[in-house]
């Protein structure tokens, strides 16, 4: 069927033929990936360092870090469903909402501990995943996109207006219940560490999924459903697997979304505001690299970073939507593999001609300095 891969990205999609596909296996990490993980995990140190700085808005940093982690989880669900399995779902944020309010009911109504609410949130998305799955068996491409849009609308009008589920207009409040033994996750720094650890773990697992048997089946079904079936792959089962995994990831993300915002209102999951968030999720998954788990993380970081940069500066903030859309369209036309592809192409260019290292390094460092300056100067205010 459809695929994002062009000749440029084909290397990205190709599965390594040498390794035997097991039912599920975690990837062996290369040195580069370990370094990347260490750097991302090292972000956890920033709040400690910044904590000593005499800035009045210290906690903002922990919040931003947690925000990136949570948003990365949400992007991962898009990676599995749309990137791996090629199913265009325009309702990812609805799954997040289901997880969010399921966790809210568990924690604030039934009095469950937060750690138990997370798997419950994941499980709560399964019925909806299956409903979409049934539709996806018969609907392809744009027809599935329209169907998921209407699902999101209908659920926004029924499920997210059901007070027993949403906790009324104001949503569930869980500020006091976020505890794991002696650790209080209501504290921003602890919550940040937990969310970042879970997000990185999920990146690792989604990356592993790609080369597992289930993941290879998804890629095969995405690229050519008939061919995949001829090879003995059960397309229906594969699609359902992708949707259930993607839904569960979004559900876990939803539980953390609840932990992050403490009491999100159900209005954000009702139509048409849910459309904004769902489109935003898909758009930034593409900018990060929709076929890559690391891309999800990059996309989330880029989104939150630019939001934070622009938030403090009212004049700039007006342009953020227009700018993001331009970035998306440019990426889709010229770099359909997203930021991940940009990194890969740059690396190959350096390998082919080591002399380009210096200007590229200067550009990257310069860009980061500029970014840092903008964040310090305009972001983190208010």
């Amino acid at each position, binding site marked *: 069927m459809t695929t994002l891969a062009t000749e440029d990205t084909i290397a990205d999609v190709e599965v390594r033929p040498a390794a035997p596909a097991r039912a599920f296996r975690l990837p062996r990490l290369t040195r580069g990936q370990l370094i990347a993980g260490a750097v991302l995990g090292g972000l956890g140190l920033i709040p400690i360092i910044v904590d000593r700085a005499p800035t009045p808005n210290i906690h903002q940093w922990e919040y931003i870090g947690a925000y990136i982690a949570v948003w990365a989880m949400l992007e991962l669900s898009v990676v599995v469903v749309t990137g791996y399995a090629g199913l265009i779902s325009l309702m990812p944020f609805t799954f997040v909402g289901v997880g969010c309010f399921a966790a809210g009911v568990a924690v604030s109504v039934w009095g469950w501990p937060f750690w138990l609410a997370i798997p419950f949130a994941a499980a709560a998305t399964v019925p909806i995943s299956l409903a979409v799955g049934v*539709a996806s068996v018969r609907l392809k491409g744009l027809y599935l996109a329209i169907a998921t849009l209407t699902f999101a609308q*209908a659920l926004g*009008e029924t499920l997210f207006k059901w007070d027993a589920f949403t906790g009324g207009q104001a949503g569930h409040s869980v500020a006091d219940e976020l505890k794991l033994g002696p650790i209080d996750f209501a504290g921003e720094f602890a919550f940040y560490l937990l969310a970042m650890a879970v997000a990185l773990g999920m990146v690792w697992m989604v990356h592993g999924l790609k080369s597992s048997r289930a993941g290879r089946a998804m890629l095969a079904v995405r690229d050519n459903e008939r061919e995949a079936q001829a090879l003995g792959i059960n397309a229906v089962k594969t699609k359902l697997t992708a949707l259930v995994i993607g839904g569960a990831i979004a559900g876990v993300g939803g539980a953390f979304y609840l932990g992050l915002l403490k009491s999100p209102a159900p209005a954000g999951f009702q139509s048409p*505001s849910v459309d904004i968030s769902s489109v935003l999720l898909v758009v930034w998954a593409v900018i990060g690299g929709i076929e890559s788990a690391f891309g999800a993380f990059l996309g989330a970081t880029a989104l939150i970073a630019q939001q934070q940069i622009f938030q403090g500066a009212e004049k700039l903030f007006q342009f953020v939507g227009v700018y993001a859309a331009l970035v998306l*369209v440019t990426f889709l036309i010229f770099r359909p593999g997203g930021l991940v592809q940009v990194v890969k192409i740059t690396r190959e260019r350096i390998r082919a001609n080591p002399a380009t290292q210096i200007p590229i390094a200067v550009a990257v460092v310069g860009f980061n300095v500029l970014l840092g300056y903008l964040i310090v100067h305009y972001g983190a205010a208010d």
Partner: protein
Amino acid sequence: VVLAASSLPVVEVASFGLAKGAVYALLALGLVLIYRTTGVTNFAHWGVGLMGIVFYFLLTSKAGSEPGVAALLSVAACALIGALIYRLVFRYVKRTNQLVLILIALGVAQFFTAAAAMGFGFEATTVVDPWLPVSNIKVGSATISSTQVISAIAALGIALLFMIWFRYSRTGRALRAVAQNREAASLAGIDEHRYSTIAWAIGSALACLALLLVIPHNAGQRGGVITTADITPFGNFLIPAFGAALVGGLVNLPLAVVGGFAFGVAQEMMILAPEPWNNLRSTIAAIMIVALLLLHTERFFVARAEQEALEA
């Protein structure tokens, strides 16, 4: 079963439904035209129409022009925007990949949503002047608004004129040729890009017209109120409009118009339903759309070759 909202006479509800249906019908016409000729499922249709409202708002409130003139100018501006979208974006996208096409359409939708938010100045609500005569008409015991009647009739008239033009004019025939067989059309000397541009321009102008019928009149005498719910990628209208287009399998123009009115009336008739059900307007639309999708309505209207060209 108690009819909770039965204080509203059926005539009033039906007139609301027909006015809403008129908007769906015009939006669906544009969707069908663009999908048939260029293969793009235009998720940016609402956003483009919204830009027309921005022009209308700026012209009437800032430039102080006559509402009627402003409406006309906005339609023209939207046609230009549509042409530009094709020339600058979709012309360069390979048609073979529905996923990329949809994602780009979403990007374009986001672009115009954000631009519209800028145009309205990030207010929670924006008020625009009406351009159609607003008054109340008595029909028996019911009171209906003149703009509803005008909307329904105007939409029908525009749709009819458009379909006649699409069927008999030279441009219309060329557009249909491009839709049916791109290669054969270009062998016959029809410039594919030129006619795709025309299709986008006309489709976008129709979107603008649809929005101009509803938004400046949604608050009756006071004009129109634009809320943040309108400044979203799909608004409240685009999804039922897709449903309407699906009645004709996304390719059949007359049935898309019929579908538009059917969706509008069906949604408004939900008001007459008993208590817990009367708020489920989107849900009824969703059920209808899923039913239409599962029927695969497109197979009734297009030759296999054209369908394969569209879905490649």
